[in-house]
């Protein structure tokens, strides 16, 4: 998809530059009240085995019944990935033994997934946009959890997760750097969060990435890939890709061969380690699950879901740019749904787009970052920020007072307008009062008045004095204008 290799993304080896080729398999937990094939709850953090139905525990004679809402969520996600929705898909059994897999098989979709090819556009820091192809999305059950650290002689099993719906989203090998890989996951996460189909919480494991990495000489044939399992943060994705690519380059340059294998990322050591080779891979004995009929969707139902899709990051970004925002500002605002929502709440409260964006980027986000707060946890509402900007726009307060006011609202709360009134922060625009203050400063400083006639730049000193006298509330433009007249300065001074 990306024609000529970008020199900046190549890694240098002893034998020349190498290109990294990355594909991903992302497991995203479907946001739903109950599991894919049972009515058991899915909430995170419940006591072990508190959310397990007879179906989840694979009791004899129990049968799976598809959760329609999970199907709807998968379709919604597919549509959000601009992907083909397959009106007929099939659930297969993937057979293997493990204590946290109660039935001895996972119900998944093998040959006929619910969603086919699509694409995601990722925005890189330098303003470049790259399209990453989506190969497929399928629905499958999560497994339970084996706990090996609870007892010296026994392993424990928690089946709360067993049967929870996952979407496995597989990309084409379209990424060429660790930065692109991380940007892809960030963008995918934004999309599913906008859609409300996955909460994107990587710490709780709601989103996990398996990263396929290979290296090749630029433009050469694809190399043998290694799959790095369960990389669960953007930072780890970058580290894992970087480490793995260099490991492979070293092997190849030493005359070795890459073995196709599954590797684990050790986040403490920052390295990948071999888990199992292709030869040791399970034979999963996939076959269509006879307990489930083929999943047949109605095109009209899919259309209804399509019609109900929310505005997604790319569309929102384009709309924000039409409102006068730079590409950079727009992408910052749309990266997280909550940020975009906050910005839009300011627009709804009457703020002008460009000044709201500047205000958020220059003032509010900095304060949030410093305090380690997310936009939803921040203490100042969009309406309050909008009210502050409105007072700047109508000259009720100066830009400087606006920042002070934000600090006050941040720490003490309250209605910005009321605070301005109560604390007398309103900007003085009354010419009479400003003239009086100017006259007082001129009268008190005859020497400076002489000086300014030969050095017009000294006018700034007078502005400062007037502002001081008015407690910062005087409108600076009005002060300038009065000073110019009183001191007899030229207009361009």
């Amino acid at each position, binding site marked *: 998809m990306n024609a000529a290799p970008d020199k900046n993304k190549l890694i240098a080896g002893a034998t020349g530059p190498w290109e990294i080729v990355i594909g991903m398999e992302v497991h995203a937990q479907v946001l739903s009240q109950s599991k894919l094939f049972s009515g058991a709850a899915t909430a995170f953090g419940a006591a072990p085995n508190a959310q397990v139905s*007879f179906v989840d*525990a*694979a*009791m*004899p*004679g*129990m*049968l*799976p*019944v*598809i959760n329609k809402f999970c199907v709807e969520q998968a379709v919604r996600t597919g549509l959000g990935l601009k992907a083909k929705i397959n009106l007929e898909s099939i659930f297969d*059994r993937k*057979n293997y*033994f*493990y*204590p946290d897999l*109660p*039935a*001895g*098989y996972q119900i998944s979709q093998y040959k006929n997934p619910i969603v086919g090819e699509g694409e995601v556009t990722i925005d890189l820091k330098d303003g470049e946009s790259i399209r990453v192809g989506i190969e497929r999305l399928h629905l499958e059950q999560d497994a339970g959890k084996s706990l090996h650290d609870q007892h010296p002689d026994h*392993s424990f*099993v928690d089946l709360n997760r067993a049967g929870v719906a996952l979407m496995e989203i597989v990309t084409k090998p379209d990424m060429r750097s660790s930065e692109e890989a991380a940007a892809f996951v960030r963008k995918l996460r934004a999309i599913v969060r906008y859609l409300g189909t996955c909460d994107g919480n990587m710490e709780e494991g709601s989103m996990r990435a398996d990263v396929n990495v290979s290296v090749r000489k630029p433009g050469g044939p694809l190399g043998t890939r290694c799959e790095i399992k369960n990389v669960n943060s953007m930072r780890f994705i970058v580290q894992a890709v970087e480490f793995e690519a260099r490991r492979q380059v070293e092997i190849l340059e030493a005359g070795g061969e890459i073995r196709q294998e599954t590797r684990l990322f050790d986040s403490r050591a920052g390295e990948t380690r071999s888990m199992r080779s292709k030869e040791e891979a399970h*034979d999963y*004995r*996939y*076959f269509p699950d*006879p*307990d*489930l*009929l083929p999943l047949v969707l109605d095109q009209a139902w899919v259309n209804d879901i399509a019609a109900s899709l929310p505005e997604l990051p790319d569309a929102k970004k384009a709309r924000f740019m039409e409102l006068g925002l730079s590409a950079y500002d727009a992408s910052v605002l749309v990266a997280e749904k909550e940020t975009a929502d906050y910005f839009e709440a300011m627009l709804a409260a009457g703020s002008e787009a460009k000044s709201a964006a500047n205000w958020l980027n220059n003032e509010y986000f900095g304060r949030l970052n410093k305090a380690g707060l997310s936009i939803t946890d921040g203490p100042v509402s969009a309406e309050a920020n909008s009210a502050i900007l409105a007072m700047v726009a109508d000259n009720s307060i100066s830009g400087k007072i606006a920042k002070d006011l934000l600090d006050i609202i941040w720490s003490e709360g309250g209605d910005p307008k009321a605070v301005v009134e109560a604390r007398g922060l309103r900007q003085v625009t009354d010419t009479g009062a400003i003239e009086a203050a100017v006259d007082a400063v001129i009268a008190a400083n005859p020497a400076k008045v002489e000086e300014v006639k030969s050095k017009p730049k000294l006018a700034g000193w007078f502005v400062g004095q007037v502002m001081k006298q008015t407690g910062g509330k005087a409108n600076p433009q009005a002060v300038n204008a009065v000073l110019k007249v009183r001191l007899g300065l030229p207009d361009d001074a």
Partner: protein
Amino acid sequence: MSDPTEFTLAEARDAVRGKKISSVELTQAFIAAMQAARPLNAFVTETPDRALAMAKASDARIAKGEAGKLEGLPLAIKDLFCTKGVRSTAGSNILGNFIPPYESTVTQNLWDAGAVMLGKTNMDEFAMGSSNETSYYKPVLNPWRAKDSNAALVPGGSSGGSSAAVASRICLAATGTDTGGSIRQPAAVTGTVGIKPTYGRCSRWGIVAFASSLDQAGPMTRTVRDAAILLGSMASVDPKDSTSVDLPVPDYEAGLESGVKGLRIGIPKEYRLDGAPPEIDALWQKGAEWLKAQGAEIVEISLPHTKYALPAYYIVAPAEASSNLARYDGVRFGHRAKGTHEIAELYEKSRAEGFGAEVRRRILIGTYVLSAGYYDAYYIRAQKVRSLIARDFEQAFAKCDAILTPATPGPAFPVGAKSDDPISMYLNDVFTVTVNLAGLPGLAVPAGLTANGLPLGLQVIGKAFDEATVLKVGRSIEVAANFTSRPETWWRAP
């Protein structure tokens, strides 16, 4: 009052409803008969206390005028059905201590209709077998014996406990399940009636799975009318089984006597087996004549892919079984081997100790045919054969309304006669597996005796969800055959 165990299900229903006998009296008579018939080994678990409690509750409902369709009628339940609070073994050691905390949909339907549970019947382990010899709980004996012989015969399988219990009149009727013939073959060799309904007619929820795409529950009874009555209460759509079908359950009993006049009965030429006993062919011939005499038109039909059915079945069924039985791992329920130190060892030992030889054989076959590199050659081809067999029937049903075949290639055989020869054992299902592969309804009805006095049955196959026609044809055969023979009660202490 005459012996209440002589009642058919229909007669007992009418007697209880007409207050000629209480459910408790009826139930006590069957409990006594069940306990007297222990030499048959038809039950894995007897539940007399529960039966009496249910009977009492039935009598109370009858007194209040709230009788259900099967009110107060004692039934035997194949041990493949999970019954809440009552051990459900599936004939296996691995489920020897398994007491389900839930009730299967089919049995729940029966209790909702007022039926009484006498106990759980013995069966081939996980329903894998045609003789009841693979049960961990020892073989069931057929109440029938050949003329002038005391040799123990098998009651068929896998629903052999149910067939023996019905034939020996130690229950009014029983439930069975049929994956390749497990209702029809034991019914045929015990002189009883059994119907495997259309796939999807009865819910599979709560029935221990053998081969999910083939398994169906059905009734095993003494008469066709009883089968019609029991099926009507067992069948239902079930939101818990995605493969159950949402079609109204007709009143099967109502149309039973409407006769076969004008019906076209297909005779498939491929069901004439080389080397089959001439008695089988003769009985089949006779069956066709009976129907013709009652006004049916006999038409020759062809089911050309019949010869591939048995091999295809022995790929599809073990494949599904190998996966369905993976859950018996000793981790959450059932048998767990002692003294193991790591997980693979726990699996291997628990499963080796828990499963019998036939189950292990089928798990191995199933695992093999699903393996990478073999899947296309075996599983996919078997599925193609399955489609062809279904198409054979579709085309045949363009020319006829029901199909008549022998039910089995022969009568009950001696215990041990085929245990060492799985292929010859598998051949018992040669006439029945096609019906499972096509998902159609099939009925076995007793039609005569062999020269040495053992029962033989005929099979009626119908269109999907046309159990009504199948039962009607079965009833016509029953009338013509006038099968009144019954086994000597040798199992009772003199």
